[in-house]
């Protein structure tokens, strides 16, 4: 009861509560995971990060593996984690859209089940957040909101299917205080510094665009891309812990809703390149048919038409004020690819 009044008191009450917030970020050494760990630390929480590498940009790094039971933690560390953790963020799993079924299901399905079993052992767990992906909706038919997960859609790749499995498992774990935050493709300079990863996800398309090859996009890419920047995404996840999200599902994307063409154009601007985007069905067909042999990223051919019809009003499920995406994060992505030294590491 006292906690609730404190929370409604506003910022002072929030800060007071946050000192008692002990966050475990599972998969927190990655691109988004480390941003989330930073956001939680900024909110005044004590942060511990579990990852296979055991590294952490903020807080304490613990070596563990989400695919193993009880995260594969040694007994001493495990007891400590179980006793102290009050909040958990699940941001583990491969982000490659071209991953195979084995890897995708290993982490997103088997891994998620074992992590959920671990959460059940936490006596002080108040809130957990699963970082899901909008791509779990696959080629969803009709207008979708936060309520829908499976609408009879089919999936473009095993990554989408894996994310779907993970969210399904989270939704079915009705005995746990766990909610999901769905994010679109996350862009922006890497919070860990360095050159961004252009091997996986949407950034895998950029080298092809920057090399000046023509690309077919339906309606010349004038459809929403649901992208967001990494810092606002991390803030939303941190907010889901403090608000708290409960068992709900939130969706976050850049409220400005840049289209895919705008994203491509902005990212390439730093390179002085104008991406050659056409609406040319035969070109699309050729890329789909022979692209694999020519080295065109599968990410490009799979996502060349509008992805799904998402109701933009889903943003209002997130209590205001919303975090503001960093201005110019799209161009910052391009600049980060251009020369790591020019990226400001603030």
């Amino acid at each position, binding site marked *: 009861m006292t906690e609730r009044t404190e929370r409604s008191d506003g910022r002072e009450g929030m800060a007071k509560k946050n000192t008692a917030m002990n966050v475990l970020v599972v998969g927190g050494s990655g691109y988004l995971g480390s941003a989330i760990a930073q956001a939680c630390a900024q909110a005044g929480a004590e942060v511990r990060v579990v990852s296979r590498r055991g590294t952490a940009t903020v807080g304490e790094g613990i070596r563990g593996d989400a695919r193993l039971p009880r995260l594969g933690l040694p007994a001493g560390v495990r007891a400590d984690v179980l006793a102290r953790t009050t909040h958990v963020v699940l941001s583990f799993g491969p982000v490659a859209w071209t991953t*195979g079924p084995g890897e995708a299901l290993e982490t997103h399905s088997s891994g998620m089940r074992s992590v959920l079993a671990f959460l059940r052992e936490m006596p002080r767990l108040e809130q957990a957040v699963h970082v899901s992906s909008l791509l779990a909706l696959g080629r969803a038919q009709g207008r979708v909101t936060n309520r829908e997960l499976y609408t009879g859609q089919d999936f473009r790749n095993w990554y989408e299917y894996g994310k779907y499995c993970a969210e*399904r498992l989270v939704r079915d774990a009705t005995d746990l205080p766990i909610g999901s935050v769905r994010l679109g493709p996350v862009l922006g300079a890497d919070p860990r510094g360095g050159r961004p990863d252009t091997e996986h996800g949407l950034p895998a398309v950029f080298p092809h665009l920057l090399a000046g090859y023509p690309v077919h996009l339906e309606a010349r890419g004038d459809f929403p891309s649901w992208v967001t920047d990494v810092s606002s995404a991390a803030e939303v996840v941190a907010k889901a812990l403090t608000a708290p999200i409960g068992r709900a599902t939130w969706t976050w994307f850049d409220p400005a809703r840049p289209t895919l063409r705008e994203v491509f154009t902005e990212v390439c601007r730093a390179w002085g390149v104008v991406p050659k985007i056409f609406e040319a069905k035969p070109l699309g067909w050729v890329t789909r048919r022979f692209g694999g042999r020519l080295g065109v990223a599968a990410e490009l051919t799979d996502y060349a038409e509008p992805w799904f019809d998402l109701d933009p009003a889903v943003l209002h499920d997130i209590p205001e004020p919303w975090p503001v995406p960093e201005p110019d994060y799209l161009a910052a992505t391009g600049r980060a690819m251009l020369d790591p030294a020019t990226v400001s590491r603030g």
Partner: protein
Amino acid sequence: MPGRPVSVDTDPHPYFKVYSAGNFGEVAPQRLSPMSWSLVGDPMERGTRALARLLWGRPPWAEGTYYVFVGYFGCRPYHNLAACCHLSQTIPGLSPQDVTDAYFEGIDPPAEVTALRATKVRQATGTALLLHELRQIGPRLRALEERVAELEWGLRAAVTANSPVALSGVLRDARGVLEEAWAVHILTTSGLVPLGALQRWVYRRLTRHGAEIAHWLSRPRELVWDRLHTAAATMDPYGPGSFLDSSFYEVADDTAPWRDYAVRHKRASTSAGEQALSLVDPAEAISGMLPPWRSKTVRALAVTVGEVMAGREHSKSLAMRTLHIYRRLLPELATLVGLDPQMWPYLTIREFTDLPTNPGLANRAAPRMHACRLALGTPMPEHLDLTGGDGVPRPWLSERPQAQRGVAPGIGTGTVMSPDDDLPDEPVIITCSSADADIAPLLPFAEGVLSERGSDLSHIAILSREYGIPCVVGYPGAASLPPGTTVSINGSTGEVKILDQS
């Protein structure tokens, strides 16, 4: 022949002299009585010969008075590994290693007898005929199940009426049914190997993650075991599920010494453990990832392989049900013809059937009993090498060490549990030396299966695929893991981690 000691062993094949208990060894008792052998090995041999004749004409090596595809040495049933591997050479694109991977725990295949290789034309027509035969298994199994059910009703009526004529009638009718059941089992078992190879070949060409997908997609949709275990729960002694209470393969499992070799079979009470909201199956998920015709091809192959897997299990259950009819019929008839109840396991089924017209056949049992007693005292190797020609059984050793292999994909973690234990509340991994359909009722509650014996297409692998749980086979010492150990198994890579955590 006077002077020659009576032996129960079959003669080894003149060319193919490497045998393996492989697929027998996982699930069948270590030793079989001569009666059970005549009900298992004999019809299997007939079934395989009939199939070989149908597909490749009359190959001279598959004819003759000796057993070609099976063998019975020291009362232990064996498959002729060399002959099975030779069969793989008669199908284009198939290698002997595919056969040993599928059914013989991945041991090294013996050297090929190249002189006996079939011509290219024979190979092609044989493959086409095999595919044609595989199309027929659905109707064949349905017709066969009707005949098995009729036999079960006949047995019930005959036992209730206590009529010797009716019992002999059942014995007469059962023979054809048993042969057909084993023939379909042989067909599905052999058909799965080239189908699997074809599936992997096509997937490698059509999809990005080729063979890995084949692993995830080929799942039988529904196996017969669930239905039979449900039927067994009615406790009807003549019902279709009653065979699940007794040992597979051994019909004399009430008689010493065969009782000691019978594989334990236990039935757990099963409650429908359906998931509240089941996930979309990977086989459905792939439909959107490929262009329409590719997706159709991929799914069609997955369904075909899954259905043949289901057919393999179905035919096995029918063979086991027919054997169960013999199991109850033979002791009844033995008393009726005045045979010593300890003696009938030492006769073959043909001798038993001919007893009323030729009572002298009963005298064959006593010397055979002596021979069996000697044979049971000799340890028989898992894989048998008779190429020495001196009649001394030597083990056939693989040059490569055999690694454990994942045969049903996924990751499972849990506490070790033997199939005889009671189900605990926590997640469990079933560990056993070998497993068969008897553990089917436990599978909905298990996170995975870890077995010492098994191959890619073992029954336990097929069952695990049905339930979508991982399975790793060929892990030595699985059955002797101390209770309370937590293990994590990866059914895709075959990785096993012992997590000594309390």
